[in-house]
């Protein structure tokens, strides 16, 4: 267990050094990856751990982002206010939508989440006075903390990094807890968990809200990061992208969604400098993973590791003792 903390710390320090190594463009890319990784991690609570495939997660991202934006423009740019209200907004939305959605499962769940998120999208797209409609909201003030302003990309990066590690740690703790084990049980066999006396409805509902809250957090970060938000971030394609990130990275693992987000963003940046057919590439990558690597990047890593271990049993023995 101690080793985990060490590794946690090492990765944090490594990432914190990024601004000294990377160019501004690559640093921005890294910020974006971390934000989308939080988003994918939050979706993973539903898809990976509870077994509820949602195609409407962008609704929470959007509500978090728009709440942070509207509050920053009209009330206060203080980070605690904007982030707090963004969390409150996505919590409320998840609490309302969740009541309906957890009553159904399978494809019906997928469709119902899609329906609700498209309703949110229509609302944002049409309320020109509040949300700027199709033009989006621009010129959003940078987040502040007291008199300190996160005024340049490097500061924003550190903010994103800090929130990312907190979110990762919290989510990791939750899914490793007995509560998280019940969620996994629901994914594997809901009837059995129910017969063991668990109120599965409550567990699913709280997982839905949890996912919604962290979706909102990532949305608020996106607003901080870009100073801009548009309805396209609430459209179902955003939900689809997040779903692809989770599945390509490895659903039901903590690392998977992070790697998925990194892969998709990096791939998109590379591919689209050469060809316009980004969707084609994304589709092919996705199909390849679904057919050949259903456990995602993490799955590939694990099987590579296992193969390596088979060949060197001695090494493995030593290592496991050390751990």
């Amino acid at each position, binding site marked *: 267990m101690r*080793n*985990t903390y060490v*590794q946690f710390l*090492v*990765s944090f320090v*490594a*990432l914190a050094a*990024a*601004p*000294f*190594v*990377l*160019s*501004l*463009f*690559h640093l*921005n*890319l*890294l910020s*974006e990856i971390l934000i989308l990784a939080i988003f994918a991690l939050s979706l993973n609570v539903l898809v990976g751990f509870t077994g509820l495939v949602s195609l409407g997660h962008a609704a929470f991202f959007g509500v978090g982002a728009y709440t942070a934006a509207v509050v920053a423009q009209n009330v206060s740019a203080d980070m605690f206010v904007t982030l707090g209200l963004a969390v409150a907004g996505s919590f409320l939305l998840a609490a309302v939508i969740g009541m309906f959605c957890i009553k159904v499962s399978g494809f019906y769940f997928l469709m119902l989440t899609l329906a609700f998120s498209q309703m949110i999208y*229509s609302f944002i*797209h*049409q309320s*020109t006075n509040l949300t*700027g*409609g*199709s*033009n*989006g909201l*621009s*010129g959003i003030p940078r987040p502040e903390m007291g008199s300190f302003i996160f005024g*340049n*990309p*490097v500061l924003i*990066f550190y903010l994103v990094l800090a929130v990312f590690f907190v979110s990762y740690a919290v989510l990791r703790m939750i899914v490793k807890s007995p509560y998280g084990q019940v969620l996994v049980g629901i994914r594997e066999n809901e009837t059995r968990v129910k017969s063991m006396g668990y109120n599965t409805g409550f567990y699913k509902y709280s997982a839905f809200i949890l996912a919604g809250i962290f979706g909102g957090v990532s949305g608020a970060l*996106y607003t901080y990061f*870009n*100073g*801009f938000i*548009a*309805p*396209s*971030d609430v459209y179902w394609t955003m939900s689809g992208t997040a779903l692809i990130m989770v599945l390509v990275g490895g659903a039901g*693992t*903590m*690392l998977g969604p*992070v*790697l998925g987000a*990194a892969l998709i963003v*990096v791939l998109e*940046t590379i591919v*689209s400098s050469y060809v*316009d*057919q*980004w969707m084609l590439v994304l589709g092919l990558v996705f199909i390849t993973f679904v057919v050949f690597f259903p456990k995602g990047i*993490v799955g590939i*890593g*694990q099987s590579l*590791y296992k193969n390596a271990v088979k060949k060197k049993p001695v090494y493995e023995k030593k290592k496991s003792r050390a*751990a």
Partner: protein
Amino acid sequence: MKKTWFKLVSVVLVFVMLAACGESAINSSSDADAQGGSGGASGDTVKVGAILPFSGVYASLGKDLSDGMKLYFDSINWEVEGKKIELIEEDTEADPQVALRRVRKLMDQDNIDILTGAVSTAVAYAVRDDVDSNKLPYLASHAGGDDLTRAQRSDYIWRSSFSSWQIGHSMGEWAYKNIGKTMYIAAADYAFGREVSSAFKEAYTAAGGKIVGEVYPPLGNNDYASYLTTISGVKADGVYAFFAGSDAVRFVQQYEQYGLKEKMPLVGSGWLVAEDLRQTIDPAAEGAFASTFWDYNLESKENQEFVKAYEEAYDRRPTIESLEGYDAARIIAETVKSLGGDVSDPDKVVDAMSKVSFTSPRGPIQFDQETHHVIQNMYITETELVDGKTENKVIHTVDQVKDPGQ
């Protein structure tokens, strides 16, 4: 345990993937102000970045803008004042966040000197702050949202295309005098549609006309039958419609199919009967009146030369977006020329750009020093049937229309 090790390795991998040889973010962000933006202008090339949608809903507009630019740059051999012009195009996918990513790439990696493009207004608004704080001269070549040259105005942003206000307002007075005293408004429910129709309303009611009703179908609405049935129950002298792209095709076609064309003339913006849509709409577009800032059939010498050159190069008719690209390229070239090829100082670049004026295929154009928006002629066209095909004909000119800037 192995997962966390794996994580560590992957973090390192990400670094390796991203690690660039350029200067680190810490440095570039701290002296961004002192240095004055992206000016990697030294050397013998002028780098022009263009953010255009090459995929997604607006892909055809992006292609036309790009072709228009290339036509002009071809005509000057990609060279001004001994400097090579390098055009770097990036696909925005009509998604503002993607566009922002691309603009950052253009600024930080390619060190462009001048930015142009943006079809969707949301994209222009999205990149506005980054362009402004990095002092990157930006010539908006399509996006028409009013605020870009009003509340969102920036020293470094100039617009050569149009504003929603110019499009809608120029039709108001003419419609009152020539169509009638009452009009019904139908416009797509998004910012552009709302801005254009409210500018029309402003001018039309100021002239003395009365709006008897309004309806705003959602953007991308797939069937107008219900709205058209509603409209046919209304008594008005005409219908003012703002739709573009596939919406325009469906609306104009169904307007005829539901028998409204015989009852009330259709009035709108140039996009309702745009050059590339009309071959699809045919012949339902006949009889429509539209306000625009360029038309294929403008009779000026400049326009005929442009049309001829474009058709020879691409074997298809230019659209209004082709013209926008062509003009944007020329404005950039003239700017570089007046600076003697030295584009290293962004303030001098925008200053030089502000003074550019010439007779474009669309007529004389110049920049409003106050708003940074183009001052241009607006034209009223009527769509006619010529040999079984529809053609727009310019029937009225509103000289030198200037956006009020607020």
